[in-house]
């Protein structure tokens, strides 16, 4: 019969004690910050890819389609290893550490964030394209008839409307993103899972430690689900809609999806 080490478990679950460990403290911070940056960059890449895919210029379309095809058709874990180890060995880019005062952003964190962002962009591209295409073509025509060019009409007329369609799946993407950052463990970027792995290497208590790790991810995704529910309720109100998804339903649907 396995002897569950409750003392160790509580030490690493209870934030007050767990966060005294710099590995976990920095790991948690890295997971949150990397998720946010990768998601924001992913939206930017996705926007360009979506516009590229809808472009009337075949060159842009092929570029966007190739990007989406490759990054959705291959595993993120492989993409990440390729970017970090692969680029490193070619010396095309070595991912040197970057220092901002007392904060050091390791090469592994940079590469991991970039890989997450590029991969996410390929998924966001489809979400953003679907959002844009859900808008009545009459909107673009009205904008053009008023003398707006494509870029201005997109920015002022189409994207603000598409945002309402894009934001709910974007929220789910971010939920996945926080979980998917754990893949960065393979390149030893110091995020949350890496931190627990390091501790496990010292004390060898994988059962206790990985339950604790999973609970931290659960905490993050649950907090996000609550934020997301508020954002979407706000969106619905401004649109004049009355339908609102219950908090509980949002929580379940938001956290039950797997990563890519």
């Amino acid at each position: 019969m396995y002897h569950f080490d409750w003392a160790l478990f509580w030490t690493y679950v209870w934030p007050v004690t767990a966060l005294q460990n710099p590995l976990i403290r920095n790991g948690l911070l890295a997971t949150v910050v990397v998720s946010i940056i990768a998601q924001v960059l992913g939206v930017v890449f996705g926007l360009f890819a979506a516009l590229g895919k809808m472009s009337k210029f075949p060159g842009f379309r092929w570029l966007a389609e190739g990007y989406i095809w490759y990054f959705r058709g291959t595993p993120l874990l492989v993409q990440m290893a390729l970017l970090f180890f692969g680029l490193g060995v070619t010396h095309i880019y070595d991912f040197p550490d970057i220092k901002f005062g007392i904060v050091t952003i390791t090469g592994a964190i940079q590469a991991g964030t970039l890989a997450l962002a590029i991969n996410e962009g390929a998924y966001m591209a489809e979400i953003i394209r679907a959002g844009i295409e859900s808008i009545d073509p009459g909107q673009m025509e009205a904008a053009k008839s008023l003398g707006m060019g494509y870029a201005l009409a997109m920015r002022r007329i189409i994207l603000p409307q598409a945002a309402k369609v894009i934001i709910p799946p974007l929220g789910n993407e971010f939920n996945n993103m926080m979980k998917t950052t754990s893949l960065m463990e393979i390149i030893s970027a110091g995020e949350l899972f890496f931190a627990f792995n390091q501790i496990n290497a010292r004390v060898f208590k994988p059962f206790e430690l990985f339950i604790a790790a999973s609970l931290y991810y659960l905490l993050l995704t649950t907090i996000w689900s609550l934020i997301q529910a508020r954002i979407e309720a706000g969106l619905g109100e401004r649109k004049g809609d009355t339908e609102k998804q219950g908090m509980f339903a949002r929580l379940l649907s938001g956290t039950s999806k797997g990563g890519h």
Partner: protein
Amino acid sequence: MTDKFAPKPDSSVIVQAEKVNKFFGKLHVLNNISLEVRQNEVVVILGPSGSGKSTFLRCINHLEKINSGHIYVNGHMIGYSERNGKLIEDNEANISRQRAEIGMVFQRFNLFPHLTALENIMEAPVHVRKIATAQAREDAERLLARVGLEAKRNQYPNQLSGGQQQRVAIARALAMKPTLMLFDEPTSALDPEMIGEVLDVMKELAHQMTMIVVSHEMGFAKAAADRVVFMDYGQIVEQGTPDEFFSNPKEERSRLFLSQILH
């Protein structure tokens, strides 16, 4: 024919379409359409569904490309320049500049749903014409008053009736101070009791600016139109004053059409 690049000598001609042809695949949607519209003239276009009326309007502000012929608005060829007898499409900036001078009112209003009535009207003056926001707001309020909707300035389109939405859409087009207004069946998506309020606004505008109106509203044509143009199968079949056309149509196809819309 005169030099295509030079502005047309007669500056009172606002729209000049010459032998315009347009195909959708094999469908010959516009078949050698020629039409001249003078300053402050009100032209009503009517014709059966699918006869190419909307397509013609959309060619006038280059929402559709044409396959051959020329369309001049204010003396400038719209959407194209001509080199060695070939039409070459203009760049986007030029096309947008030309469109800014042409107002368009759509059958389904196409108001921007994320903006209030006032913001809908201010949007293009501020972001296309780069007019100061305060000035644009003042102008927009005046326009809303002109279409009788000053009380609705902060309402969103989905809080307005169809007739109110269309009046805001007219104000939105007028805010760009266009020299030409195109109306594509502006009342055909409206409940009958709202048609009058929109037509009243259009009658007010008549003869203060050049208007091309696709509409089957005979009352409006009789009250406001200088000329009625009847289209069928992508061709202009007959045109004349409203009196001539409605009381004494010359062509068989016109008679047939009139007998259908009268019953």
